[in-house]
């Protein structure tokens, strides 16, 4: 039954992918990790707070969405440190991050209000684009995760020149740019459907 081989043996399409399935309602005791949203090393000067709600097509917040963030370090490099969830062999529980190293990855479950919060380091630019945090969203009811990006406002020229943002019709670009609420504090809501639906991305 697990026959993954080959309807087509010509190169890249030789192995067929495992289909996605919804994360369902019961991941909450398995996937969330302590300090999942505290990605920034403690006291780091480049720390930014990014937060928002996840909404459905009727504008109701999702109390059971899971948001994952992945971003470059402030100098634009890809983080290579392990230790996002450190486990404790004595207790069988999580120790959590050590507060020193930057792993670049975080995972946050929305709370009962559909709200998520992350503290991470301001991402640096890579390649020709404006800096951003990559986002992957999971939820009950979502049969396959959704990718999007959080661009931080400030450098209008860089945002205007970004190759992905410039592919997006002008009226929808703002769904990909966080709103600065206070110094180093940004709001980014994710609207799965409906008015101001967030722009989602597909990598090819």
């Amino acid at each position, binding site marked *: *039954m*697990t026959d*993954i081989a080959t309807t087509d043996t010509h*190169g890249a399409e*030789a*192995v*067929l*992918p*495992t*289909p*996605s*399935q*919804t*994360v*369902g*309602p*019961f*991941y909450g*005791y*398995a*996937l969330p990790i302590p300090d999942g949203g505290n990605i920034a090393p403690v006291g780091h000067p480049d720390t930014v707070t990014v937060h928002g709600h996840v909404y459905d*097509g*009727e504008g109701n917040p999702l109390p059971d969405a899971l948001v994952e963030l*992945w971003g*470059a370090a402030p100098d634009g490099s*890809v983080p290579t*440190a*392990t*230790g996002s969830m*450190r*486990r404790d062999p004595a207790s*069988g529980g999580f120790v959590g991050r050590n507060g020193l190293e930057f*792993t*670049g990855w975080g995972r946050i479950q929305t709370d009962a209000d559909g709200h998520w919060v992350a503290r991470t380091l301001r991402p640096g630019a*890579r*390649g*020709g*684009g404006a800096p951003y945090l*990559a986002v*992957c969203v999971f*939820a009950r*009811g*979502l*049969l*396959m*995760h*959704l*990718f999007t990006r959080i661009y931080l406002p400030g450098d209008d020229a860089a945002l205007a020149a970004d190759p992905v943002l410039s*592919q*997006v019709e002008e009226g929808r670009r703002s769904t990909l740019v966080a709103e600065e609420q206070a110094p180093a504090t940004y709001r980014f809501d994710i609207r*799965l*459907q*409906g008015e101001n*639906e967030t*722009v*989602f*991305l*597909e*990598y*090819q």
Partner: protein
Amino acid sequence: MALTQHDIDKEIAAERDAYEQRVAGGAPVEHHPDRGYAPYRSSVLRHPKRPPVGIDVTKDPELVELSSPAWGERDITELDNDLTRQHRGEPVGERITVEGRLLDREGRPVRGQLVEIWQANSAGRYAHQREQHDAPLDPNFTGAGRTLTDDHGFYRFTTIQPGPYPWRNHTNAWRPAHIHFSVFGRSFTQRLVTQMYFPNDPLFPYDPILHAVTDQAARDRLVAAYDHNLSVPEFSLGYRWDIVLDGPSATWMEEGR
């Protein structure tokens, strides 16, 4: 008024017929569910209606999404892949061993990546506060585990055969027995959350979540195979299930882990 299984069966059949017609008309095979698959009612308000914006990753090999978070020995303990040894006593149920390889679309092993699982106990009950099914909890079974793939891309778990359980999509809705999997690849674009099923489950025809994968061959790839060579004498029954990650990856060349 309440939705019956018969109502859902008709919707599943209509979606399948529409898919088969699309393919017969030259449309590509669909390996993943349509996020708007309505027989699974929770999807209705939770899927985007606008088409996604495509990103051609070959135009920018520097994209951070072409890399992935790193995992190491400190993120895992040796017991994390044995769900039968997380408590003082033995969990109730049939012990099973689940093993397989994590591969990319080229069939290459994906090494050192995080595989997380969660599941119901043998009675079909999750150790989750919001669970409403009144089957018994098992004080010796939580049902969550994790591991890293080895140098050949293999993962392996020891656990308990999960039970099927009812849910409220429609009247008399039952999920076939399954284990939830969350998997990372070499690139963030390869992220996958899915469910593994067991062979010959009589509930397959009735489940709108499984049938959200409208392609029969793709659905079959969600079903593990019983593998007698994986069964451990006097201990557990063996199931083999390989996982193939979709999505582009740029880092095979530099893969040294």
